[in-house]
């Protein structure tokens, strides 16, 4: 708020009121973030500094733990995770974008049913399917094969992806499609030139959510893979079996498992927020 004095000089802005709520927010943020902070911190400690009471905030940092994790062969698992995540997200988009688009057009009763079906697949507990999946997967010979995970992750993420993307498609004003069709565009052309550019932030948000869920997935991975197709979460668990109480190196492994997605989420934060809120924020 500025007030102009008669001399024409603007008065100083009213100082922003000190907000106690801001402080509360900061405290909450630090509290919630603390375990992650501690995890990363511990990864830089020597084992002796890791499991102590009282816990040590200051110490001489070292990269030894990370080295140890690498030595234990984290590479293949990371590649597997990358492949499973990337490939399944790609498939989700390939299958889901057309589906979401079809569902967002003039709704027919059938589309409501289809949407219902998609969502219902999400509701069925995976655990009910794991047994036959195990049997089927091993019969096809895909046990311990990364492609099994690719397919399952696609099925896992597709419903949410379709739902999210549909809500983004619905945001596009119908008039734009009409204007494009009057301008002479076929449906395909309108989609490509008008709709997709508008929806692409939403699609990016959806892809990010899929990446998060796929990367972090454990249940299918642990049951359907062994050595070759092991993903990061499985590797981490295996690591514990070997290392037991060595907290520092465990933290290093945990950090490396979790870090890629954390960084992704941070950098694409706005997209993440848009995606989770289903486009409700304009």
């Amino acid at each position, binding site marked *: 708020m500025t007030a102009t004095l008669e001399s024409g000089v603007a008065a100083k802005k009213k100082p922003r009121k000190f907000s106690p709520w801001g402080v509360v927010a900061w405290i909450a943020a630090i509290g919630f973030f603390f375990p992650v902070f501690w995890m990363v911190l511990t990864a830089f400690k020597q084992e002796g500094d890791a499991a102590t009471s009282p816990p040590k905030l200051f110490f001489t940092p070292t990269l030894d733990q990370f080295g140890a994790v690498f030595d234990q062969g984290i590479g293949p698992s990371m590649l597997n995770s990358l492949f499973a995540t990337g490939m399944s997200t790609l498939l989700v988009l390939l299958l889901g974008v057309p589906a979401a688009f079809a569902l967002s057009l003039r709704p027919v009763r059938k589309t409501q049913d289809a949407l219902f079906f998609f969502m219902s697949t999400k509701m069925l507990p995976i655990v009910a399917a794991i047994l036959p999946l195990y049997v089927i997967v091993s019969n096809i010979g895909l046990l311990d094969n990364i492609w099994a995970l690719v397919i399952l992750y696609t099925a896992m993420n597709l419903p949410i992806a379709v739902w999210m993307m549909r*809500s983004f498609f619905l945001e596009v004003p119908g008039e734009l499609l009409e204007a494009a069709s009057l301008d002479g565009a076929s449906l395909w052309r309108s989609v490509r030139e008008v709709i997709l550019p508008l929806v692409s932030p939403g699609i990016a948000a959806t892809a990010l959510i899929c990446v998060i869920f796929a990367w972090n997935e454990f249940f299918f991975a642990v049951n359907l893979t062994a050595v070759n197709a092991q993903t990061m979460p499985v590797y981490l668990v295996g690591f514990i079996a070997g290392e037991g109480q060595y907290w520092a190196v465990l933290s290093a492994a945990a950090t490396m498992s979790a870090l890629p997605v954390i960084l992704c989420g941070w950098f694409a934060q706005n997209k993440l927020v848009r995606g989770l809120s289903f486009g409700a924020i304009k």
Partner: protein
Amino acid sequence: MTLTADTEDVVAERVRKIREAKDIGVSRAEGWRRRGPLLPALIFMLVVTQIPFLFTLYYSTLSWNLVRPGSRHFVGLNNYLAVVKDSQFWSVALNTVVLIVGVVIISAALGLLLALLLDRAFPGRGVVRTLLITPFLVTPVAAALIWKTTILDPTNGILNWVLSLMGIGPVDWIGQFPLTMVMVELIWQWTPFMMLLILAGLQSMPRDILEAGRVDGAGAFQLFRELTLPHLRRFIELGVVLGAIYLVNTFDAIYMMTQGGPGIASANLPFYIYQRAFLGFDMGQAAAMGVVVVIFTIAIASFALRLIFKSFTGKEEAA
């Protein structure tokens, strides 16, 4: 030029004829073109999700233990009877319900509080939001590991150290309160999700309604209760439903933190079934349990789906 008005019946008849023609008219080709793009996804989902489930149904009628090959035979509904009589199953089912309800409610409440805090501007708001969403991003097994070791460990965990400063003796958190600790970890991971959803709701709320309320003399709390909360309702509902859907399948935290123990004190249905199938190799029983879980979930889910649909397939209410 003016027309003589048709009587109502004549009009109704014309409309009916038009309707008929229309229904046939949206030609086959157009119908396929409209729904075509949906098919690949639909077929994929059908194959990958329904077929295994059908198999589960089939297995549930067998007595089949992987350790005793060749012993597979049809027993009809015996497995289901065993499930009903299995007191462990019901105890685990109770755990599952407690877990889902507890986590969802508390994380929604916390999420609401955090969202309210984030809705105002204050220095560093962006950073605060970044920090707050992080738990949701962390790999669940990694998170569970960190909680189990560095935070909750009886000897060297941070929690006990902090409490010791206040003179409270060391507590074996995971040993004594296994289910609760799993819930705490889950709440930690899911609150950001709820917070983001509710924040979206807060930010999509038209401000002029609040201003009108203030002018009418409503205090902050009344504004919240009468105006904000009803608007947020559908976002909270969405969060609750989605959260519950994902939480039904919680496995990672239990696997990592307690292995369902002691005994089955902190086991939930997915973990229990997993134990039966992959550790006990009792496929038939596990399958039957799976089916029972599915039936329960369907009952609750159809209620939930209707709720989401009602809230979200309509357009936003006019301001």
